[in-house]
């Protein structure tokens, strides 16, 4: 329908605009309930969080009022100690917060990188035709289907230093000579968390990438085959460029997810400084300490950091695309 209108742009411009505005109005009314819903479940809470971050609100007074506007104190302020020294405070001066930021970014980068590479490999295998492919495709999704809390608990026991099966297997094979306290040691806690996250999320990545792979026309591979091109070259010259849009979407999904990681780490290595993330700190501040001011400041910063990453990613993605076009 749209094609008929846009195909004849010169003819009857007046009728077209009225038709278009009529359509736009209709569309607006259809969208209105959704917009109202979005306002209440997304925009309003976000606005409230940001507002709270400029007050000294406590859990005890958020319903009754009584909290005061404190400007940017939750973000950065200072106090003079009895001995005259100055102590900086607020989220931006909090070493724990920057530790959590660093942990989160490290976790997001490493988990998404591993999951993308492994997911791509799995997707390539699943894209090949072999007997029982449907069954394997279903089976590989099992880790993704298990609720995170359950898999975190499960892995917690598997990684246990005394009765964990992972240590038992490594000992039996002879890779280690004494059991490793995976989740307890500062240097292995992040590895443990990454291991479980990769195990859980690779299937999801594989699925998204597989969908992308199936969009690539088969005849491109056939002509490459006829031309006798090496399979590796086919992969890098045909598969990867054509897969790129799907890959970009998959990666952005995962980065957003990984930056707000909470459940897995909260269950597997609760409050360990080596793995604590921004979401966990903010949860702790809001729910356990009841400090809505500082907790909201942390949530707001988390929101800004995620927004920054998404913008950066989209921007970098575009630069890359235009670079290709100029070739």
């Amino acid at each position, binding site marked *: 329908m749209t094609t008929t209108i846009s195909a004849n742009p010169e003819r009857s411009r007046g009728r077209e605009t009225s038709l278009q505005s009529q359509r736009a109005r209709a569309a607006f009314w259809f969208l209105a309930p959704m917009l109202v819903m979005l306002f209440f479940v997304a925009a309003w809470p976000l606005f409230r969080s940001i507002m709270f971050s400029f007050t000294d609100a406590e859990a005890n007074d958020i319903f009754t009022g009584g909290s005061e506007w404190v400007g940017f104190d939750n973000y950065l302020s200072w106090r003079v100690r009895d001995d005259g020294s100055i102590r900086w405070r607020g989220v931006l001066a909090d070493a724990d917060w920057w530790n959590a930021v660093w942990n989160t970014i490290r976790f997001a980068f490493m988990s998404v990188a591993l999951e993308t590479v492994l997911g791509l490999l799995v997707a390539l295998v699943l894209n090949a035709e072999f007997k029982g492919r449907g069954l394997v495709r279903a089976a590989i999704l099992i880790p993704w289907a298990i609720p995170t809390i359950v898999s975190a608990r499960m892995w917690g026991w598997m990684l246990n230093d005394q009765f964990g099966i992972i240590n038992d297997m490594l000992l039996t094979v002879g890779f280690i000579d004494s059991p490793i306290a995976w989740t*307890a040691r500062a240097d292995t806690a992040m590895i443990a968390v990454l291991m479980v996250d990769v195990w859980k999320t690779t299937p999801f990545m594989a699925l998204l990438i597989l969908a992308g792979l199936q969009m690539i026309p088969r005849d491109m591979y056939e002509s490459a085959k006829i031309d006798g091109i090496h399979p590796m070259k086919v992969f890098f010259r045909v598969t990867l460029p054509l897969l790129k849009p799907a890959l970009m979407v998959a990666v952005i999904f995962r980065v957003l997810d990984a930056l707000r990681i909470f459940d897995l780490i909260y269950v597997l290595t609760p409050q360990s400084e080596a793995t604590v993330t921004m979401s966990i700190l903010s949860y702790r501040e809001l729910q356990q300490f009841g400090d809505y001011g500082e907790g909201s400041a942390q949530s707001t910063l988390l929101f800004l950091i995620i927004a920054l990453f998404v913008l950066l990613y989209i921007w970098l993605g575009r630069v890359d695309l235009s670079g290709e076009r100029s070739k």
Partner: protein
Amino acid sequence: MNHKMKAAALRVSALAMAAALVAPAASAQGVEVTVVSGAVGAAVANFDALVAPWEERTGNDAVLVPMPASTTDQFGQYRLWLAAQNGDIDLYQTDVIWAPQLAEHFVDLTQVATEAGLIEQNFPSIIESQTVEGKLVAIPIFTDAPALFYRTDLLEKHGREVPTTWAELQETAQFIQDAERAEGNGEMWGFVWQGNAYEGLTCDALEWVKSFGGGQIVEPDGTISINNPQAVQALETAAGWVGTISPEGVLAYQEEESRGVWQTGNAVFMRNWPYAYLLGNGEDSAVAGSFDVAPLPMGEGEGAQSAATLGGWNMAVSRYGDQQEAAIDLALYLGSAEAQKQRALNEGNLPTIQSLYEDAEILEANPYFARWQEVFQTAVPRPSAPTQGDYNEVSTLFFTAVHSVLSGEEEAADALEDLEADLEDVLE
């Protein structure tokens, strides 16, 4: 004993919510009192029998709303309800450390508890833990205090005594661990406890600090006392256990993980709560009948003593509840010797009333109770009273600092100096 409560019954909650909505017509004259509690299965099942005598006597109804999630989540939920001045819930079952944080929302029970004789019947330290600025915030209904579990068979075999100081414990644990390992028992460890970074570590570490005469983090008058040489020594002592008499993994252990090592027969000593006693003597336990309990060891230096962190649960009456009068009456009943005895017999909960520890019927059902009376003499409260609404933050700062010392990331002296400044920030 937080983890026990965490196992609360999800499926029952919907049912109870429904019951709470439907029930009002049930008794014509009496009123309905709504009790919210994050209880274990046995507590939910036992509730009706527990309150039956009270219901009969007053003609009122008591309805239990079990909370589905962990104590931490319960706390968050309760605080929101109370902040919103919710009138639906009349009685809250509260953890021993919550009272000061929620004090402003609860009714002062000092007078009614005194009239009922409960103040003098209870252990003074427990009443103290529920008193905020002279106001009794909640009535104790059962209590908890940890002890040192030790293997009678191993001590006897190696000719050792039950240790009364941490130094003796370390020496004995190391000796038996080495001897047992030399005999081919390669998985034997000397001492297991709770080293994970969570509320439980605050309990463990408070005991070490207190037992070395290093105070109780924040004193009852609000002084921040944690940065002192005895506390440093206490933490250094504990850090010395990790990797020697305690597995490195103890830094990730909560109660259940340490019980796992203990109950499979792979530890000489364990620090744990009383619940581990019944389970340790269960049919599937490798240590059944071959262990006993004693007060936790003490440190050295001035003011050294044995110390046990106080746990336990209480009943608090909401200021906003619709049935305040009946709720107060029910709270008094649940804290009475009659109800506490019923709980001790049916749920194995430790009473807060001193005389019940000499009750023949209770001791017959729970022979280990007699030994806990001694443990309660050394009970130390967590600093929830002087820190009030900031307790959770104080506790988190404390266990985080302790955890970094235990894992060797920080020196005890530096960690405690930083902790002191952080605590000043929070409490000023």
